[in-house]
């Protein structure tokens, strides 16, 4: 009957209860979004790295993969040396560069080109056509096709350099577009292409001869990745070796501000939820102080009064958290759509990552806040002096 009384009390002031529940739901949605944001970018990054299937990345010393335009020379020797390591099974050299393409209207469009070995690459997923088989072939993404007005099967003139004032290109060659692909690490709006490594190096002349931006390394299953990483880094002073774990740690450090912001906003959401429930339950107790005194007078035990008042807080928090979960997922999807459209971000990059365990933990925390929010008004209700309260109520 006490539970029924608690629910009936909430139903008694429908508009107020609905508004408070809505407030708790908004706080819960914000909490969920902040938890999802806190881990979203890290998990997205992890997904990309693991999708590529390589555990170690060699980059010019002191840089992150494609963090700068830095390259390392003696690429072929480096690749051969890395391949001799007994724990290494695959070596995938990459060279990133700019590519200038002439359109049918004779204008020039720039794009990012990856020079790679198509047999061991993990940077794109072919959507249409076929993969690279020769140095005069090109695989591109949809943005490239849209910007250049080309289609799969077309022949296009590309160049390694372009002087806009003189309208002169350098390192030009004619290639055929043989496939359309989705580039894993690049934004959907970013124009991208892939060619065989040797072609990209050759187009850049002496500046790019035998140079590499990144060397991706896959180890044999069961290998101690950290040992392999240390060996590879020690074997060549010009390179840094970055394991997936270390890369994630670097990402963590770079996203520290994001996580701090998410943590602060999540804490604010919890505090708002707590205050909303405390306020409503306190107001509710104050309104019913005479009723509560009478309940105590007719023999209702203190703990039952506490249970009744706290049940109100728990019910508000539970309903608010449940609605908030749905609201949080909807807003996260909406915000993700806006943020993912930022230039330079991979198309499949998610800012908000839904982890059921983390979501339920955070919403459980909100419900705990709801329980805590009811403690003070509940205790106040249970310990009010019966005789004095009745006297004051009679006078009032």
């Amino acid at each position, binding site marked *: 009957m006490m539970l029924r009384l608690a629910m009936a009390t909430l139903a008694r002031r429908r508009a107020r209860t609905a508004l408070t529940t809505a407030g708790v739901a908004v706080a819960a949605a914000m909490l969920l979004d902040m938890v999802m944001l806190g881990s979203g970018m890290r998990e997205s990054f992890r997904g990309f790295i693991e999708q590529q299937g390589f555990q170690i990345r060699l980059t010019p010393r002191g840089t992150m993969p494609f963090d700068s335009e830095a390259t390392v020379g003696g690429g072929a020797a480096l690749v051969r040396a890395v391949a001799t390591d007994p724990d290494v099974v695959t070596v995938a050299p990459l060279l990133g560069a700019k590519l200038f393409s002439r359109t049918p209207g004779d204008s020039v469009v720039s794009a990012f080109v990856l020079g790679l070995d198509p047999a061991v690459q993990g940077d794109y997923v072919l959507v249409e056509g076929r993969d690279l088989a020769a140095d005069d072939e090109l695989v591109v993404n949809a943005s490239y096709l849209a910007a250049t007005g080309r289609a799969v099967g077309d022949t296009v003139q590309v160049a390694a350099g372009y002087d806009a004032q003189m309208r002169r290109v350098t390192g030009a060659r004619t290639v055929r577009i043989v496939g359309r692909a989705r580039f894993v690490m690049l934004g959907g709006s970013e124009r991208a292409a892939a060619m065989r490594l040797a072609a990209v190096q050759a187009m850049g002349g002496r500046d790019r001869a035998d140079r590499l931006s990144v060397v991706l390394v896959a180890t044999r299953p069961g290998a101690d990745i950290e040992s392999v990483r240390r060996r590879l880094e020690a074997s060549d002073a010009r390179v840094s070796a970055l394991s997936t774990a270390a890369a994630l740690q670097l990402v963590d450090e770079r996203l520290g501000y994001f996580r701090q912001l998410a943590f602060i906003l999540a804490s604010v959401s919890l505090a708002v939820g707590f205050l909303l429930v405390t306020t409503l339950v306190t107001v509710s107790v104050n309104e019913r102080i005479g009723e509560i005194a009478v309940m105590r*007078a007719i023999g209702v035990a203190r703990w039952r009064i506490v249970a009744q008042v706290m049940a109100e807080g728990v019910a508000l928090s539970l309903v608010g958290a449940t609605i908030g979960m749905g609201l949080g997922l909807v807003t996260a999807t909406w915000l993700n759509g806006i943020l993912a459209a930022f230039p330079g971000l991979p198309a499949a990059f998610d800012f908000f990552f839904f982890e059921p365990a983390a979501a339920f933990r955070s919403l459980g925390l909100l419900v705990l806040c709801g329980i805590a929010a009811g403690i003070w008004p509940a205790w106040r209700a249970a310990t009010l002096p019966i*005789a004095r309260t*009745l006297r004051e109520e009679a006078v009032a």
Partner: protein
Amino acid sequence: MREIVLAARDVRRDYPVAGEPVHAVRGISLDVAAGDWVAIVGPSGCGKSTLLNLLGAIDRPTTGSIAIRGRDVARMNDADATRFRLTGIGFVFQRFYLMPTLTAAENVELPMAEAKLPRAARVARARELLAYVGLGARADHRPYQLSGGEQQRVAIARALANRPALLLADEPTGELDARTGTEMIALFDRLNRDGTTIVTVTHDEELAQAARRVVHMRDGAIVDQVLRRPLADAVPAPPHAPGTAQA
């Protein structure tokens, strides 16, 4: 010889107001026998309600003892006093204080639910009590659907729910019009004639005149007692009267 249901001995209640001690009740002794009906009257602020709160174990005397059916309620801890109020004492308040979200029947069931009476038994008892106070047809109405007099009848039924040894009423006609007040007095009279032991605090002269004994208070002390109807005349309680206390 009738059982003494209530025995108060030299009860005092002092409390501080703005740092000064107020002697609300000054050494009151009072016996109430089973089946008796005592009306406590006196001017406002003379300590009537304070005394009633002490007798009902919702306040503690500064000194003195209060025994109800031989149990000293003044020495009980909060949990024991709460339990004792639940089963041993029925309260009727001037402002009814029904739970607005519950029906009349549910309001009457509330103390029985607290006493863990099985649902079927408490539903039956609530219906019986509401019929007794003349509200058998209004059991499913909520307080706002009832008149003041009807709400007070529900409050009386609630007070009788656990068959208390003693019914305490604080100004039970204070919020009612004259006609409804008279009906309420008739109900109290019937309750008493059916065996319920009653102590009322009142300013209502008509209610006081209906009691068997009238106790006059002034400045926290009893100044006079008038026996209006001897207890020996009381009709023995019928065995199934709704308000009859448990053995």
